[in-house]
């Protein structure tokens, strides 16, 4: 009974946890510009969606970025971190970040001069259209590069040039091939791909195309399914393709599932299931000392602010992630100062947690919840309704689905337990 009571109760987040996350920040993401040289139909900042600041082809002010870096370097250089040699990625995001290369160069030079007491690595998500111009610099700074490519010419046909409407395929392929040819070692070690699944490609086709051409395994995502404009729902539905269905419909489904491993949503769900419910997975040595049934956790699957990253928009808004509505900003950076009040952030965050706490206490999946409250469509209303809520029936179905996948591929158990590290 006591165990049940503890599992039905949740706690608020505390301001010191946010401070601690700032000290141990893993990634700082700058939205370098909201301008882009492509106009992708399904872009999260495009016509299909709402929930973001108006795109005005702005560039993030270098001064604001430097102010934020000063603010964080003060925290980083005066506080002791949990790990001896913490690693922080400084990432450049857009729009297309390479449109504002001046910002990137200046910020990197500035970071290098700050003498931060941590390891810093740079990373970028790019559409590769300007890669031919800037690859030498990216290689010199050992950027971790994530290239967006949806597959072959037809697959790439939603990624069109903004000025002409022409398919970006030829330019992107030529640039990526040039990078691979000129810097093969860098390409092997630092370049990855991501792809969007839609009605002009397939998981199997995209996976094979990128594997064959670049010997890389791309990360394939479905179209973002939150904050879709009401008047665009039909268009969204036409463009959307379900990843599990796409895998199922491939000519050699089982072989593809095996190749994809965690890229297969079912295997990824199984991983989550085993991590949460097998009782065999421990985050670190300290996890052995804590009985998870006796500690109170926060409800929903929302990350505590800055636990994974900090995102700064082109307008200076500070968010906990680049994938959430800009109206959830936690602070801001102006030309003069950084506004981040951890007490206020905790208060607002806890207000949202409280709104769904009743549902969470009744939910059978509360121990492994992956529902970020920012994605609950009516979270700002008085009584929001969680899309991830599971009653017993739905939860049993979820367990059968995960375990059914394991029954089909028993070798996944050993592979997940011994080869996968999720930090």
């Amino acid at each position: 009974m006591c165990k049940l009571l503890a599992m039905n109760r949740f706690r608020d987040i505390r301001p010191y946890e946010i401070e601690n996350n700032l000290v141990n920040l893993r990634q700082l993401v700058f939205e370098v510009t909201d301008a882009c040289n492509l106009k992708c139909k399904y872009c999260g900042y495009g016509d299909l969606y709402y929930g973001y600041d108006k795109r005005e082809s702005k560039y993030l002010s270098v001064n604001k970025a430097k102010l934020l870096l000063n603010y964080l370097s003060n925290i980083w250089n005066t506080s002791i971190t949990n790990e001896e040699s913490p690693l922080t990625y400084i990432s450049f995001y857009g729009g297309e970040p390479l449109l504002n290369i001046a910002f990137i160069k200046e910020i990197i030079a500035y970071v290098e001069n700050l003498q931060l007491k941590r390891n810093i690595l740079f990373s970028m998500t790019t559409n590769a259209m300007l890669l031919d111009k800037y690859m030498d610099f990216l290689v010199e700074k050992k950027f971790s590069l994530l290239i967006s490519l949806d597959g072959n010419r037809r697959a790439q046909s939603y990624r069109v040039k903004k000025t002409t409407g022409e398919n970006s395929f030829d330019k992107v392929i030529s640039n990526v091939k040039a990078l691979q040819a000129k810097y093969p070692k860098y390409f092997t070690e630092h370049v990855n791909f991501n792809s969007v699944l839609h009605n002009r490609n397939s998981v199997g086709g995209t996976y094979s195309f990128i594997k064959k051409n670049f010997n890389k395994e791309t990360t394939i995502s479905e179209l973002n399914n939150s904050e879709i404009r009401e008047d665009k729902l039909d268009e969204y539905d036409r463009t959307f393709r379900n990843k599990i269905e796409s895998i199922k419909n491939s000519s050699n489904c089982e072989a593809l599932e095996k190749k994809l491993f965690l890229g297969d949503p079912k295997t990824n769900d199984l991983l989550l299931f085993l991590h949460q419910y097998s009782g065999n997975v421990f985050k670190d040595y300290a996890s052995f000392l804590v009985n998870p049934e006796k500690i109170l956790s926060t409800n929903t699957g929302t990350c505590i602010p800055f636990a994974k990253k900090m995102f700064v928009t082109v307008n200076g808004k500070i968010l906990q992630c680049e994938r959430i509505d800009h109206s959830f900003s936690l602070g801001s950076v102006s030309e003069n100062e950084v506004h981040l009040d951890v007490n206020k952030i905790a208060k607002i965050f806890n207000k949202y947690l409280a709104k769904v706490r009743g549902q969470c206490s009744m939910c059978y999946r509360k121990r492994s919840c992956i529902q970020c409250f920012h994605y609950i469509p009516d979270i700002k209303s008085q009584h929001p309704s969680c899309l991830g809520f599971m009653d017993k029936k739905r939860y049993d179905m979820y367990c059968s689905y995960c375990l059914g996948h394991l029954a089909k591929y028993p070798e996944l158990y050993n592979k997940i337990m011994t080869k996968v590290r999720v930090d």
Partner: protein
Amino acid sequence: MKNKLILYPSTFLWIKSDKGLLYNSLTYKLSEFIVSPSVAKLCSVLSKPDNLYSVVIDDMCLDEFEKKFICVITSKHYGTLVKINYNGISYMPLLSIQNRQSKLSYLSSITFYIGGTCLKTDYYKQTIFPVSTTQYLNVDDVVLFIKMFHRSCNIKINLVISDINDSKCLNKILEAFYFIKEDVVLYTLADDVLSTILMKKAIHLGYVFHFIFLGSTLKFDIVNRLKNIGSFNVLIFNESEYSITKNIMLSALISKYDVIPIFRNNVNFFKENVYMDNKSIRAVKLSKREVFAHQSINLNFFGDMFVMPDGRVYSNVNMQPIGTIKNSIHQLITNALKKQQAWLLIRNKGRCKQCVYQWICPSPSNYELVKHRYNLCNIVEAEKLK
């Protein structure tokens, strides 16, 4: 007829030569079994992760050992026997630690031996007990050391004072550690306390005292005098001291105190009261998490550090130092996590490695380190006599 034998995910299966053990971490039941060649084959199939803790068996082809093994599993709820086309699945307990890196959050306590003279013993190698030395830890260095990290982690700080009547030393400690007084416990020998005035001052300031008694010299009047200003550890060497301690504490109306056996040529007392035996093994109630913990860390030592009066830092005072107070706390934690150090000292050596109870037995203790004997156990001896 062919069936499928499935072990539950909460069941551990261990085999050591011809002896096997089943332990269910939900019901806390354990059963030994004889590992005949036929049972060994079944266990070998069950122990392959890809088989998802199941093995197909043919009723018609089972020998007596196999039948007995299956009967134990089903009757004592370590698993179940199902039809061959049954869809339900299981998985063996397979430990996965996601991150083995050093972390500040691992640190749970630091015990500082301030130094000074007192009763000269080496009991500090078995439990917290003052050391007698002419050396003193530099209190300013200690404060500087603590200030580097105390705001970022939640740790208990023990200060072991050798000479409690050195008022100058005690006053300095009370002043220096005032900023973290809520986290500090002051340890001292109760027999040495001449006056309680300074202690009352310390308690008024918000400090907590822990008095250490030797069972052999325990007296009602000292216990009674100190009972309202601290808690007690009583070190005992035999059963008679245990009885005396119990009586004195009862007379003084003290219900909360710790009795700590100390090893000093009193093997029989230890064999009877401390060593593991079949009864204590059968009383084990370990969750899956706790069994995995035994396989990975030392639950007696993990998270503790000790600083001696010469400034050397130890993860266990019976082992080599992991650095000095001048090192960074991260460096010290990294060293404490090295394989030959105490935090990761587990029962993976010597006779324990051959024992079927290896992972349900408590983590290695200080007694074993002091005795240079890698188990405190009557079980092996009892088995030899069989």
